[in-house]
C-alpha cells in the first residue's frame, strides 16, 4: 500500500502545476489571436496565429514606456530597500538597544498597512514634495512595505551567522565598515539575493500605489493596461499580449534565484 502511494506521489504536484498553468496558457493563447477572433467564439488554440498584438506593444511608445517605467522604479526600490535594510537588520540581529523589539514590530506593522488606506494621503504627500509622477515617488512609496520585509528576511539570515565571525574580525583589527563590506556581506550573499528577489516581486506586482502616484511620465505598464482595457472597448488580444509580457521579467528573476527559492521563502527561518 505504502509503495503504491509513493509511486503515485508525483501526481499531486503535477496536477497542481497543471492547474497553475491553465490560466497562463489561456492568456498566451489569446495574445496570439486578433480581438475579433477572440470575440468570435471559443477555440482552444489560435486559428489565425498572429504576432500583431506584440508588434503593436513593442513599437508604440505609450506601451513600451510602461515597461520601462515599471522596471526603473522596481530596480530603484530594490536597491534602496536592501541598502537601507542591511545595517538595520545587522543591528536587530546582533544588538539589544532601547526600543528594539517595539521598533521591529512597528516596522512590520507597515507591511500590514492596507495600501488602500494610504492611497489618497500618498497622493497628497508626494504632490506636496513635488515628486508626483516621478519614478522616485513610486520607488520611495514601495519602501513602505519592502523595507520591513527586507529587514525581516535579512535579520533571519544574519541570525544564522555565528557571532564569532564578527568577534574574530574585530580582534584582527577590522573597522566596522570594512568588516561589514569585506566579510559580512559576502557571507550573507544568499540572503541578500533572496531579499532582493522579494523586493523586486512585491514592487513589480503592486499597482494601487504605483497608479495613484503617477499620471504620464512614470506610468507603470499595469496601469497602461487598465486604461486601454476600459477606453478602447476591450482590445482583448492586446490586453492578453501586454499581460503575457508582464510575466516575462518575473520568470527571468525566478530562473536566476531558483536554487535559493526554497530557503529564501522561509525567510531564513527554518
Amino acid at each position: 500500500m505504502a509503495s503504491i502511494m509513493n509511486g503515485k506521489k508525483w501526481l499531486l504536484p503535477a496536477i497542481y502545476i497543471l492547474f497553475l498553468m491553465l490560466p497562463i496558457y489561456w492568456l498566451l493563447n489569446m495574445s496570439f489571436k486578433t480581438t475579433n477572433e477572440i470575440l468570435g467564439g471559443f477555440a482552444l488554440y489560435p486559428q489565425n496565429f498572429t504576432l500583431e498584438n506584440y508588434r503593436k506593444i513593442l513599437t508604440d511608445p505609450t506601451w513600451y514606456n510602461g515597461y520601462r517605467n515599471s522596471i526603473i522604479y522596481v530596480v530603484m526600490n530594490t536597491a534602496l530597500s536592501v541598502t537601507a535594510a542591511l545595517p538595520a537588520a545587522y543591528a536587530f540581529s546582533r544588538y539589544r538597544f532601547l526600543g528594539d523589539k517595539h521598533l521591529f514590530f512597528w516596522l512590520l506593522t507597515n507591511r500590514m498597512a492596507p495600501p488602500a488606506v494610504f492611497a489618497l494621503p500618498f497622493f497628497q504627500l508626494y504632490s506636496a514634495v513635488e515628486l508626483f509622477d516621478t519614478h522616485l515617488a513610486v520607488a520611495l512609496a514601495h519602501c513602505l512595505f519592502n523595507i520591513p520585509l527586507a529587514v525581516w528576511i535579512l535579520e533571519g539570515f544574519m541570525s544564522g551567522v555565528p557571532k564569532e565571525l564578527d568577534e574574530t574580525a574585530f580582534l584582527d583589527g577590522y573597522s566596522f565598515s570594512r568588516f561589514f563590506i569585506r566579510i559580512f556581506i559576502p557571507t550573507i550573499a544568499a540572503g541578500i539575493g533572496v531579499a532582493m528577489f522579494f523586493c523586486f516581486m512585491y514592487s513589480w506586482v503592486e499597482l494601487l500605489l504605483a497608479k495613484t502616484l503617477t499620471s504620464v511620465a512614470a506610468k507603470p505598464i499595469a496601469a497602461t493596461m487598465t486604461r486601454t482595457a476600459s477606453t478602447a472597448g476591450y482590445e482583448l488580444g492586446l490586453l492578453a499580449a501586454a499581460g503575457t509580457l508582464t510575466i516575462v521579467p518575473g520568470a527571468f528573476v525566478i530562473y536566476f534565484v531558483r536554487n535559493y527559492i526554497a530557503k529564501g521563502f522561509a525567510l531564513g527561518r527554518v
Partner: protein
Amino acid sequence: MSKKTNPKAWILVIPVVILVAFNALIPLMTVVNYSVQETFGSNVFFWEGVKWFEQVLNSSRFHESFLRQLAFTGTVLVIEIPLGIVVALCMPKKGPWVSVCLVLMALPLLIPWNVVGAMWNIFALPDIGLLGHTVNAVGINYNFTQQPTAAWVTTIVMDVWHWTSLVVLLAYAGLCSIPDDYYQAAKIDGASAWSVFWRIQLPKMKNVLTIAVLLRFMDSFMIYTEPFVLTGGGPGNTTTFLSIDLVKIALGQFDLGPAAAMSLIYFFVVLLMCWVFYTLMMRNEEQ
C-alpha cells in the same frame, strides 16, 4: 542567543526609520486628521470628533463588507494552508524536477495583481473563457458576472491559484531542513507515514507555517486589485471586500471623513490580529 546591549546600534537603524516614517507617519497623520473633521471642499475643515467613527461602526454597509472580508480570508486560509502542505509533502526531495517544480510554482507570485485579475476574467468568461466554457459545457450554469455564488467561487479559486504556491514553498523549505537521520530513526521504529507527519514533519514546519499564515492573513485581508479587476466588487456588492469598499467611499464618493475613520478601524483590526500571530511566532522562536 544572547545579544550585547549597544545603544549605538540606533545609528544603523536610522536610515530605515527615516524612510519608513516618511511613508507611514505622514500619511497616517493625514488619515487621522480627516477622520475627525468634516469638509465641504476648498480646504475648509470643521471639527467633528468621533462622529465618523460612530457612523462607520454603526453602518450596516461596513458590517457587511467586514463579514464578507472575514469569510473570504477564512476560506482562503482553510484551503491554501492544508493544500500547500500536502503539495509540499508530495514534492520530490532532490533531482532535476525540484527546480522545475519550484520555478513553475513560483510563477503566479510574480504576475502583477491586475494581470492576475484580467487573466482570470478572460479565463472564466462563460462564452470565450476556458474555465467558463468548460463548466457550462458540463451542464452547470455558470456566469460569474451575474451569479453571486459563481463570483465568490471564482474569486476564491483565483486566490488559491495565486497564493497557494507561497505556502508550498514555505512548507517545502521547512521539510528540506529536516535531517535524514530523523526519517531513518522513524523507519527503524516502524512509524507509519501518518505519525511521521504528526511527530516529525509538522513540528519542524511550525515556524515557516506561522510565517505562511501571517503573510496569507495580511495579504488576503488587504486584497484589492485582483477582485476589483475580476468582478469589480459585483454582482451587486457580493464581492466588495473591505479595501474595495474603502476606495469606493474615499475616491468614488469623496467622503473623506468616513473613509478615513474606516481606514483607521480597518488598520487597527489588521494590526491586532498580526500582533497576536507575531507574539505567538516570537514565543516559538525563543523555545
